[in-house]
């Protein structure tokens, strides 16, 4: 295992942890006139954590294995599609 691969993997793992931390950070309460439902709201938060982690993981993996041809924004756009 090369040192370069080791550092990249570490970087990736730290990135995922960072995202989970950011995703978990609640802001002010929301005011919607429809009942968001407590179970469904929690489900969305959990789902968003997973989705956020997948998003970043895919993004990092693409960058990791990219040969420098694609720009970051191009990668994100292709993920959105």
């Amino acid at each position, binding site marked *: 295992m090369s040192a370069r691969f080791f550092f990249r993997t570490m970087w990736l793992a730290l990135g995922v942890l960072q995202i989970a931390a950011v995703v978990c950070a609640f802001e002010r309460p929301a005011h919607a006139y*429809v009942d968001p439902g407590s*179970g469904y709201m929690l489900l969305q938060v959990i789902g968003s954590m997973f989705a956020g982690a997948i998003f970043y993981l895919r993004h990092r993996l693409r960058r990791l294995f990219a040969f420098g041809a694609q720009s970051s924004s191009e990668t994100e756009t292709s993920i*959105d599609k």
Partner: protein
Amino acid sequence: MSSPAATFRDPAGSLRIDDDRVLRTVHPEYAEDCLNFLGSELAQSWIATGRLVETRVLSSAPGEQLELEHQRVFFPSYPWEWTPGQWISAAELTLDFAEQQLSIGRVLKDATPLNVLFEGSRPVFVDVLSTEARELENPLWMAYGQFVRTFLLPLAAYKYLGWSLAASLSRRDGYEPRDLYPYLSAWTRLHPAIFSHVTLPFLLEKKNGTNNSAGKLKQRPDVALYMHRRRIKHLRRALHAFTPKMGDSKWSTYPESASHYSSTDRNEKREFIERILYTARPAHVLDIGANTGDYSRLAAQAGANVVAWDADVAASEQNWRAACESRLPILPLIADAARPTPALGWQNAETSSLLDRARGRFDLVMMLGLIHHLLLIDQIPMAEIARLVNEFTTRWAVVEWVPATDVRFRDLCRGRDSLYAHLDERAFLRSFTQYFEPVARKPLSNGRVLFFLLRNH
């Protein structure tokens, strides 16, 4: 006459029906956002393709309320009158709308079947205030729970528990996960779509209580958008999983299995009805007891906009599917003339009764092969039936008289012959000529008689 506000929960505005006009008031602080949406390419293309209700700005001034007028949908209908296929098609329209809103930086703020009406067999999104500018960093969809409660769970309850979709009549905000969970088998609770939308939310609520700690997450806009799209994709998958497989019912196979109709009788009846339709050229037809819609389609092919009532779910579903395939303007509804949908909601004014929506709205009413059911099963007096037909039509009616000698009449009579001995063609004419003049009479060889009636005044 102006009705009380038909909608009032949305803080952005309200809607009222004024005579034949559908008017919406948007409060000043929401007016600009609403105009932005209506001016968007998305709104224009949805209106052009008939997926969003046509909307005209009546008055607009900075700092003042915005007045809008919507194109009136000919016959408003409610989810409790829809077939399963209509539910699915309304849900798909809502998800399409929600998804396309995302790309213009907007989001649906409510997602209930009540935002959708049907124009013929086609769903139309009618609430232009259901959309608002999206906070680009918020990955949560506040209407997600409402979509699940009001679309997915009634469909899941119908598919897995056999609960009628008509029961949504008593559930303005749909089902909660706890309503379904106790009745689902252990195996069904683990079905992926049920697990995500019933089991898991139920367990989360049980653990955390129902205190709503609704919050906003903050994310990078591109990540938030990705999460919104992913959620809609999951909802589509669940909708697909909850789509019921429609079987046959006694009535959905009735046209093929009706042994009391020879092919000659069937052809003669068809020719007679066809001749009437091309003579009268009605613009709006009500087909009461439409079954799978054979005669609804005849009327639509003759140029009429048809509303087709039948109490049987499978028969109405077939009618709706056939109307979609043939692109005919037919709105099949699960409705029973003897037990019509009541008015509902606050002051009984949020949704209208079936009869109020139907009175005087049609220029031709068809009641074929139904009168003996009303007389014998529902025990409605003949004079009342005639009065009801008169209330619906402004001009014509076609009614099939079924005599006491008819095999189906005898089936329904169930030995009560003496009780119904007075029901004959003379009694039929005595009641109907109170309101109508018979224009044509067509006896069939099976003893049934078709009457083409013209309203007296």
